[in-house]
Protein backbone atom coordinates (compact mmCIF):
# COMPACT_ATOMS: atom_id res chain seq x y z
CA UNK A 1 0.00 0.00 0.00
CA UNK A 2 1.26 3.44 -0.84
CA UNK A 3 0.16 6.97 -0.17
CA UNK A 4 -0.06 9.50 -2.91
CA UNK A 5 -0.92 13.14 -2.96
CA UNK A 6 -3.79 13.84 -5.34
CA UNK A 7 -5.39 17.29 -5.57
CA UNK A 8 -3.72 18.26 -2.30
CA UNK A 9 -5.00 15.26 -0.36
CA UNK A 10 -3.15 12.16 0.81
CA UNK A 11 -4.81 9.10 -0.71
CA UNK A 12 -4.13 5.47 0.16
CA UNK A 13 -3.70 3.34 -2.94
CA UNK A 14 -3.10 -0.37 -3.43
CA UNK A 15 -0.32 -1.70 -5.66
CA UNK A 16 -2.53 -1.38 -8.76
CA UNK A 17 -3.52 2.22 -8.07
CA UNK A 18 -7.00 1.57 -6.64
CA UNK A 19 -8.24 3.44 -3.57
CA UNK A 20 -8.25 1.40 -0.39
CA UNK A 21 -10.60 3.83 1.36
CA UNK A 22 -13.57 5.00 -0.75
CA UNK A 23 -14.23 7.80 1.75
CA UNK A 24 -11.06 9.57 0.66
CA UNK A 25 -12.66 10.15 -2.72
CA UNK A 26 -14.01 13.49 -3.89
CA UNK A 27 -14.87 14.93 -7.27
CA UNK A 28 -11.73 17.05 -7.24
CA UNK A 29 -9.57 14.05 -6.44
CA UNK A 30 -11.21 12.06 -9.26
CA UNK A 31 -10.61 14.83 -11.80
CA UNK A 32 -6.97 15.17 -10.78
CA UNK A 33 -6.37 11.43 -10.68
CA UNK A 34 -7.90 10.94 -14.15
CA UNK A 35 -5.86 13.85 -15.50
CA UNK A 36 -2.71 12.13 -14.24
CA UNK A 37 -3.68 9.17 -16.42
CA UNK A 38 -4.34 11.46 -19.36
CA UNK A 39 -8.14 11.39 -19.10
CA UNK A 40 -10.48 14.35 -18.82
CA UNK A 41 -13.67 13.56 -16.95
CA UNK A 42 -16.89 15.13 -18.20
CA UNK A 43 -20.22 15.28 -16.35
CA UNK A 44 -21.17 12.03 -18.09
CA UNK A 45 -18.05 10.31 -16.73
CA UNK A 46 -18.88 11.58 -13.27
CA UNK A 47 -22.45 10.36 -13.55
CA UNK A 48 -21.16 6.85 -14.29
CA UNK A 49 -18.63 7.14 -11.47
CA UNK A 50 -21.37 8.16 -9.01
CA UNK A 51 -23.43 5.16 -10.13
CA UNK A 52 -20.45 2.86 -9.56
CA UNK A 53 -19.85 4.31 -6.09
CA UNK A 54 -23.50 3.82 -5.12
CA UNK A 55 -23.53 0.27 -6.42
CA UNK A 56 -20.31 -0.68 -4.63
CA UNK A 57 -21.41 1.01 -1.40
CA UNK A 58 -24.59 -1.06 -1.34
CA UNK A 59 -22.48 -4.19 -1.69
CA UNK A 60 -23.65 -5.21 -5.15
CA UNK A 61 -21.41 -6.84 -7.74
CA UNK A 62 -20.38 -4.49 -10.44
CA UNK A 63 -20.60 -5.75 -14.01
CA UNK A 64 -20.37 -4.07 -17.38
CA UNK A 65 -23.86 -5.39 -18.01
CA UNK A 66 -25.28 -3.57 -14.98
CA UNK A 67 -23.68 -0.32 -16.10
CA UNK A 68 -25.22 -0.85 -19.53
CA UNK A 69 -28.60 -1.13 -17.84
CA UNK A 70 -28.09 1.84 -15.54
CA UNK A 71 -29.85 4.20 -17.92
CA UNK A 72 -26.85 6.54 -17.85
CA UNK A 73 -24.89 4.99 -20.67
CA UNK A 74 -25.12 1.89 -22.86
CA UNK A 75 -22.24 -0.56 -23.11
CA UNK A 76 -20.90 0.94 -26.31
CA UNK A 77 -21.00 4.38 -24.74
CA UNK A 78 -19.24 3.08 -21.63
CA UNK A 79 -16.36 1.75 -23.74
CA UNK A 80 -16.22 5.12 -25.48
CA UNK A 81 -16.10 7.05 -22.21
CA UNK A 82 -13.33 4.92 -20.75
CA UNK A 83 -11.46 3.43 -23.72
CA UNK A 84 -9.45 0.26 -23.26
CA UNK A 85 -10.48 -1.41 -20.03
CA UNK A 86 -13.54 0.63 -19.00
CA UNK A 87 -14.54 -1.15 -15.81
CA UNK A 88 -11.00 -1.01 -14.43
CA UNK A 89 -10.52 2.63 -15.36
CA UNK A 90 -13.90 3.76 -14.09
CA UNK A 91 -13.54 1.99 -10.75
CA UNK A 92 -10.06 3.44 -10.33
CA UNK A 93 -11.38 6.98 -10.77
CA UNK A 94 -14.44 6.16 -8.65
CA UNK A 95 -12.21 5.50 -5.67
CA UNK A 96 -13.41 1.93 -5.13
CA UNK A 97 -11.49 -1.33 -5.14
CA UNK A 98 -10.66 -3.28 -8.28
CA UNK A 99 -13.79 -5.04 -9.59
CA UNK A 100 -13.89 -8.75 -8.80
CA UNK A 101 -16.21 -9.68 -11.63
CA UNK A 102 -15.76 -11.80 -14.75
CA UNK A 103 -18.60 -10.20 -16.69
Amino acid at each position, binding site marked *: MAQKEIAGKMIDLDENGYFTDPDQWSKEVALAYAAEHGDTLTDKHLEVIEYIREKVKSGQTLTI*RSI*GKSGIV*DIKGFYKLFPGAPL*KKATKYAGVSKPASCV
Partner: protein
Amino acid sequence: MSEKKYPLKKVLLICAKGTLEDVLATLVMANGAVMEGIETKVFFTFFGLDAITKKRMNKLHTETVGNPAMRMPGGLPFPTILGMLPGVEAGVSAMMKKQIEALDIPGVEEFLMMIDAGGGEIYACKLAMDMFKLTKDDLVDEVKGVLTVGEFYEMADGLQTQIIFT
Protein backbone atom coordinates in the same frame (compact mmCIF):
# COMPACT_ATOMS: atom_id res chain seq x y z
CA MET B 1 16.00 -7.24 -11.17
CA SER B 2 12.39 -7.89 -11.94
CA GLU B 3 11.45 -10.06 -14.86
CA LYS B 4 10.07 -8.27 -17.88
CA LYS B 5 6.43 -9.06 -18.55
CA TYR B 6 4.68 -9.25 -21.89
CA PRO B 7 0.95 -8.82 -21.31
CA LEU B 8 -1.49 -10.33 -23.76
CA LYS B 9 -2.41 -7.99 -26.58
CA LYS B 10 -4.60 -10.12 -28.80
CA VAL B 11 -6.66 -13.29 -28.35
CA LEU B 12 -8.40 -15.40 -30.94
CA LEU B 13 -11.01 -17.78 -29.57
CA ILE B 14 -12.50 -20.77 -31.34
CA CYS B 15 -15.89 -22.19 -30.41
CA ALA B 16 -16.66 -25.50 -32.07
CA LYS B 17 -19.48 -26.78 -29.86
CA GLY B 18 -23.11 -25.78 -29.60
CA THR B 19 -24.04 -26.72 -26.06
CA LEU B 20 -25.02 -23.86 -23.79
CA GLU B 21 -22.05 -24.28 -21.45
CA ASP B 22 -19.45 -24.57 -24.20
CA VAL B 23 -20.75 -21.47 -25.92
CA LEU B 24 -20.94 -19.52 -22.68
CA ALA B 25 -17.37 -20.50 -21.80
CA THR B 26 -16.19 -18.98 -25.07
CA LEU B 27 -18.32 -15.88 -24.61
CA VAL B 28 -17.19 -15.28 -21.03
CA MET B 29 -13.55 -15.59 -22.09
CA ALA B 30 -14.10 -13.32 -25.09
CA ASN B 31 -16.02 -10.66 -23.21
CA GLY B 32 -13.48 -10.82 -20.40
CA ALA B 33 -10.70 -10.11 -22.87
CA VAL B 34 -12.62 -7.20 -24.36
CA MET B 35 -13.14 -5.81 -20.85
CA GLU B 36 -9.38 -5.92 -20.27
CA GLY B 37 -8.75 -3.95 -23.41
CA ILE B 38 -7.30 -6.97 -25.24
CA GLU B 39 -7.99 -7.14 -28.98
CA THR B 40 -10.47 -10.00 -29.32
CA LYS B 41 -11.66 -12.13 -32.22
CA VAL B 42 -14.07 -15.04 -31.87
CA PHE B 43 -14.38 -17.71 -34.51
CA PHE B 44 -17.43 -19.98 -34.55
CA THR B 45 -17.23 -23.28 -36.37
CA PHE B 46 -19.08 -26.61 -36.63
CA PHE B 47 -21.87 -26.83 -34.04
CA GLY B 48 -20.55 -23.65 -32.46
CA LEU B 49 -22.29 -21.89 -35.36
CA ASP B 50 -25.58 -22.42 -33.50
CA ALA B 51 -24.48 -19.65 -31.13
CA ILE B 52 -24.53 -17.07 -33.94
CA THR B 53 -27.43 -18.51 -35.96
CA LYS B 54 -30.46 -16.30 -35.41
CA LYS B 55 -32.93 -19.17 -35.30
CA ARG B 56 -30.97 -21.27 -32.82
CA MET B 57 -28.91 -18.99 -30.59
CA ASN B 58 -31.54 -18.59 -27.89
CA LYS B 59 -32.37 -22.27 -27.79
CA LEU B 60 -29.02 -23.76 -26.83
CA HIS B 61 -29.18 -26.68 -24.44
CA THR B 62 -27.03 -28.25 -21.76
CA GLU B 63 -25.65 -31.69 -22.46
CA THR B 64 -27.48 -34.20 -20.27
CA VAL B 65 -26.29 -37.40 -21.93
CA GLY B 66 -22.70 -38.54 -21.59
CA ASN B 67 -21.84 -35.75 -19.20
CA PRO B 68 -20.28 -37.36 -16.12
CA ALA B 69 -20.00 -34.02 -14.31
CA MET B 70 -23.79 -33.60 -14.31
CA ARG B 71 -25.37 -33.65 -10.88
CA MET B 72 -28.93 -33.71 -9.61
CA PRO B 73 -30.00 -30.77 -7.48
CA GLY B 74 -28.55 -31.79 -4.12
CA GLY B 75 -25.40 -33.29 -5.58
CA LEU B 76 -26.30 -36.91 -6.42
CA PRO B 77 -24.95 -38.23 -9.71
CA PHE B 78 -27.24 -37.71 -12.67
CA PRO B 79 -27.87 -41.04 -14.44
CA THR B 80 -27.26 -40.75 -18.16
CA ILE B 81 -30.44 -42.68 -18.90
CA LEU B 82 -32.46 -39.87 -17.28
CA GLY B 83 -30.98 -37.40 -19.71
CA MET B 84 -32.42 -39.41 -22.55
CA LEU B 85 -36.01 -38.96 -21.44
CA PRO B 86 -38.06 -36.45 -23.40
CA GLY B 87 -38.10 -33.01 -21.81
CA VAL B 88 -35.26 -33.61 -19.39
CA GLU B 89 -32.67 -31.81 -21.49
CA ALA B 90 -35.03 -28.86 -21.87
CA GLY B 91 -35.73 -28.79 -18.14
CA VAL B 92 -32.09 -28.99 -17.16
CA SER B 93 -31.24 -26.28 -19.68
CA ALA B 94 -33.96 -23.99 -18.35
CA MET B 95 -32.61 -24.48 -14.83
CA MET B 96 -29.08 -23.74 -15.98
CA LYS B 97 -30.25 -20.56 -17.72
CA LYS B 98 -31.95 -19.40 -14.54
CA GLN B 99 -28.80 -19.92 -12.49
CA ILE B 100 -26.72 -18.09 -15.07
CA GLU B 101 -29.11 -15.14 -15.16
CA ALA B 102 -28.98 -14.95 -11.34
CA LEU B 103 -25.24 -14.29 -11.59
CA ASP B 104 -25.88 -11.39 -13.98
CA ILE B 105 -24.39 -13.39 -16.85
CA PRO B 106 -26.18 -12.44 -20.06
CA GLY B 107 -27.73 -14.84 -22.54
CA VAL B 108 -26.02 -15.68 -25.81
CA GLU B 109 -27.61 -12.92 -27.87
CA GLU B 110 -26.89 -10.20 -25.32
CA PHE B 111 -23.35 -11.49 -24.80
CA LEU B 112 -22.62 -11.18 -28.50
CA MET B 113 -23.96 -7.63 -28.43
CA MET B 114 -21.72 -6.80 -25.46
CA ILE B 115 -18.61 -8.19 -27.15
CA ASP B 116 -19.44 -6.27 -30.32
CA ALA B 117 -20.13 -3.07 -28.37
CA GLY B 118 -16.72 -3.32 -26.75
CA GLY B 119 -14.96 -3.69 -30.08
CA GLY B 120 -14.58 -7.48 -30.13
CA GLU B 121 -15.03 -9.14 -33.51
CA ILE B 122 -17.14 -12.17 -34.35
CA TYR B 123 -16.50 -14.47 -37.31
CA ALA B 124 -18.02 -17.59 -38.79
CA CYS B 125 -16.20 -20.52 -40.39
CA LYS B 126 -16.76 -20.85 -44.13
CA LEU B 127 -16.37 -24.60 -44.30
CA ALA B 128 -18.84 -25.27 -41.50
CA MET B 129 -21.33 -22.83 -43.03
CA ASP B 130 -21.16 -24.73 -46.33
CA MET B 131 -21.57 -27.97 -44.46
CA PHE B 132 -24.68 -26.82 -42.58
CA LYS B 133 -25.98 -24.95 -45.65
CA LEU B 134 -26.05 -21.63 -43.86
CA THR B 135 -25.71 -18.22 -45.46
CA LYS B 136 -24.61 -14.95 -43.91
CA ASP B 137 -28.30 -13.97 -43.65
CA ASP B 138 -28.90 -16.82 -41.20
CA LEU B 139 -26.36 -15.31 -38.83
CA VAL B 140 -26.69 -12.43 -36.37
CA ASP B 141 -25.73 -8.95 -37.49
CA GLU B 142 -22.74 -8.88 -35.16
CA VAL B 143 -20.92 -11.39 -37.38
CA LYS B 144 -18.24 -9.41 -39.13
CA GLY B 145 -17.36 -11.93 -41.76
CA VAL B 146 -17.11 -15.50 -42.94
CA LEU B 147 -13.53 -16.75 -42.91
CA THR B 148 -11.45 -19.63 -44.17
CA VAL B 149 -9.05 -21.24 -41.75
CA GLY B 150 -6.16 -19.49 -43.46
CA GLU B 151 -7.75 -16.07 -43.03
CA PHE B 152 -8.30 -16.83 -39.37
CA TYR B 153 -4.63 -17.69 -38.84
CA GLU B 154 -3.61 -14.53 -40.66
CA MET B 155 -5.35 -12.56 -37.94
CA ALA B 156 -3.02 -14.05 -35.35
CA ASP B 157 -0.20 -11.79 -36.45
CA GLY B 158 1.83 -9.74 -34.05
CA LEU B 159 3.48 -10.44 -30.73
CA GLN B 160 1.69 -11.34 -27.51
CA THR B 161 -1.13 -13.09 -29.36
CA GLN B 162 -2.82 -16.31 -28.30
CA ILE B 163 -5.24 -18.69 -29.95
CA ILE B 164 -7.59 -20.41 -27.53
CA PHE B 165 -9.74 -23.39 -28.44
CA THR B 166 -12.49 -23.68 -25.85
